[in-house]
């Protein structure tokens, strides 16, 4: 046990610097040696879970499985229509130097997913809609045609871009700095290739900078090599825009050592859209997920953000410690603390966040 802990800790050294994240999903994939598509309908992960994902959620994740086989949700309304959803409600407390702390309960988000398979394993239509808070917002909506025999698929519509770890925490530095997260879906087409060991995607979309009028586009892609115990991926993105061109490159990796899963991601950004011209930014994430017992996960993340490589002493870091408890299937409780550190003259860069979250899903 000691040796294992030491090993785990050492891996932190390997994946160094920052961490962050999540709710889980990427670490679960590494834990099981799965691809995202093992549990999710969407080959790049997130959103609607498939049959395997639901079985996993019922039997592997929770501390205790309750109710008989007839008493639980099976994922499908008919053979061709599958529904799912996530609800997250939380209590947060924000503290920053020189300002009174703020705390409140909030309905963070309610998302509903649906997929209709018009032709089994071949042609499907997928929708991911955020229905609360506020009025409905479409996050993903696409048609996907797959060639399961050869591992290819193509999808067109609106979707999240394939780049790096699709963390649940959208405020992770690596997600903010790359500008690619589940808050920034884009419209275009994506071509993907999935085999047992390889997962690769390339997407051509408008690009955020061209959201309104621009004439440019964004090309984003990644390749992931998946092994039972570890995986490594490379990702890149290039945006052409009147606002200035932007290039992003990243490497990300995951490793399982006994009860601990390690995730790391490093990204570099070069962006010409700044008032003074080109700026080079970077961010790092390191995450350790320790499966203490069935249904109990302890997550530690360390993150690093370099807002401008030409300016010294401007770096920011963030540490997070989270406890994730899944008492019964489809219900998760999370509590966490995040400590931001940055230059002393900026209060927001030195804030602290404490939160408790209730997460129900199906």
């Amino acid at each position, binding site marked *: 046990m000691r*040796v294992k802990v*030491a090993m785990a*800790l*050492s*891996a*932190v*050294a*390997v994946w*160094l*610097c920052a961490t962050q994240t999540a709710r889980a999903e990427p670490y679960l994939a590494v834990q099981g040696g799965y691809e995202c598509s093992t549990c999710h309908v969407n080959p790049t992960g997130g959103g609607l879970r498939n049959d395997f994902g639901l079985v996993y959620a019922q039997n592997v994740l929770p501390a205790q499985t309750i109710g008989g086989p007839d008493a639980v949700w099976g994922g499908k309304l008919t053979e061709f229509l599958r529904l799912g959803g996530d609800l997250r409600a939380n209590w947060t407390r*924000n503290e*920053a130097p020189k300002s009174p702390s*703020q705390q409140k309960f909030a309905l963070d*988000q309610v998302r509903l997913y649906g997929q209709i398979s018009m032709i089994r394993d071949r042609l499907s239509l997928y929708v991911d809609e955020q229905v609360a808070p*506020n*009025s409905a*917002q479409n996050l993903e909506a696409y048609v996907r045609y797959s060639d399961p025999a050869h591992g290819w698929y193509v999808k067109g519509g609106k979707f999240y871009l394939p780049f790096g770890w699709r963390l649940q925490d*959208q*405020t992770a530095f690596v997600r*903010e700095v790359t*500008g690619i997260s589940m*808050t*920034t879906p884009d419209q275009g087409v994506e071509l993907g290739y999935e085999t047992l060991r390889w997962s690769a995607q390339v997407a051509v979309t408008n690009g*955020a*900078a*061209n*959201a*309104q009028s621009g004439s440019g586009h964004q090309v984003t892609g990644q390749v992931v090599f998946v*092994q*039972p*115990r570890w995986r490594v991926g490379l990702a890149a993105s290039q*945006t052409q825009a009147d*606002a*200035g061109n*932007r290039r992003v490159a990243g490497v990300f990796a995951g490793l399982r*050592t006994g009860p601990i899963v390690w995730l790391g991601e490093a990204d570099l950004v070069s*962006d010409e*859209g*700044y*008032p003074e011209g080109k*700026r080079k930014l970077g961010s790092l994430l*390191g995450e350790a997920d320790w499966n203490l017992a069935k249904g109990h996960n302890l997550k530690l993340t*360390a993150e*690093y953000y370099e*807002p*401008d490589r030409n*300016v*010294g*002493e*401007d*770096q920011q*870091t963030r540490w997070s410690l989270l406890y994730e408890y899944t008492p019964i299937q489809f219900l998760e409780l999370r509590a966490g603390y995040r400590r931001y550190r*940055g*230059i*002393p*003259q*900026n209060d*927001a860069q030195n*804030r602290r*966040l404490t939160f408790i979250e209730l997460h129900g899903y199906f």
Partner: protein
Amino acid sequence: MQSASTGVRGVKLFNEYSSMRAAWCRFAPLGFLGASLGLAACAGKGTGLDANGRPLGSGGGVGGAITADFQSIQDNVFTPVCTVCHAGAGAPQGLRLDAANSFNLLVNVPSTEVPSLVRIRPGDPDNSYLIQKIEGHASVGAQMPFGGPPLAADVIAAIRQWVSDGAQPATAQAAPAVFKVLSTAPATDDLLIGSLPQVMLAFNQEVDAASVDQQSLRLERVAATGEAGSSELVLAKLSLPAPNPHALLLTPLSPLQPGHYRVLAHTAPGLELADINSRPLTLNSSGVGDDPVILEFDVAGDQ
């Protein structure tokens, strides 16, 4: 067949794993210690930076209590809080909130999320999409700043007030931007005891190195009477410090004698200082002849 190959793969993996494991065990404690200490020390000290983490003198970041004008909102909210995400070509919804772009992308520009609303409608905060986003009742998406604590009530009130007042641009942005002196060391009317190694002038823009001529600025010692014509030129070297192109250094070639001094700009075409956008230096001080005085100070004798 299948299970045999899986078995072989398993053994191979296990061997790989064991050797990796041995290596880690050796380096683990050291590596972990180093990594955590390293990262903990990673946050910037902020030396030489303004509140937004930009080099001093690069504009903005003045801070202070927020007031209902655009410059104050830019310096207190948009730049320090929002540009973490809303900057560069990756800015969400194409909304860049850095000082150079924010005004033009906000006022009377349709929102991307709800195109029927504009981001800022002068005079109508309730129907300005940005106000809805920071107050957390926009019909689409999350409250801004995303994932951070909501803006304080007085900050939101100031932004609302600015919109109600007609969402005017910053005064500096209304007039064509000018190239001017921000501060000097010594400051005007300082009395210096003993000699002075150099005079430093800080500007609001980067100085165009090509415009720096040994005659762009001159240091004069004024006779006690202070009358025109009764001053003598003090030989000094003019230089642009490499790490900070927003500053100019005037280094006297020999120690300054006690007396009254002034620094003057040369306004003759071809000799005047300009910034990197080729704008000439603007000075509003009264001049001596054609040449405006930038700074006056006194040097007292060593006691």
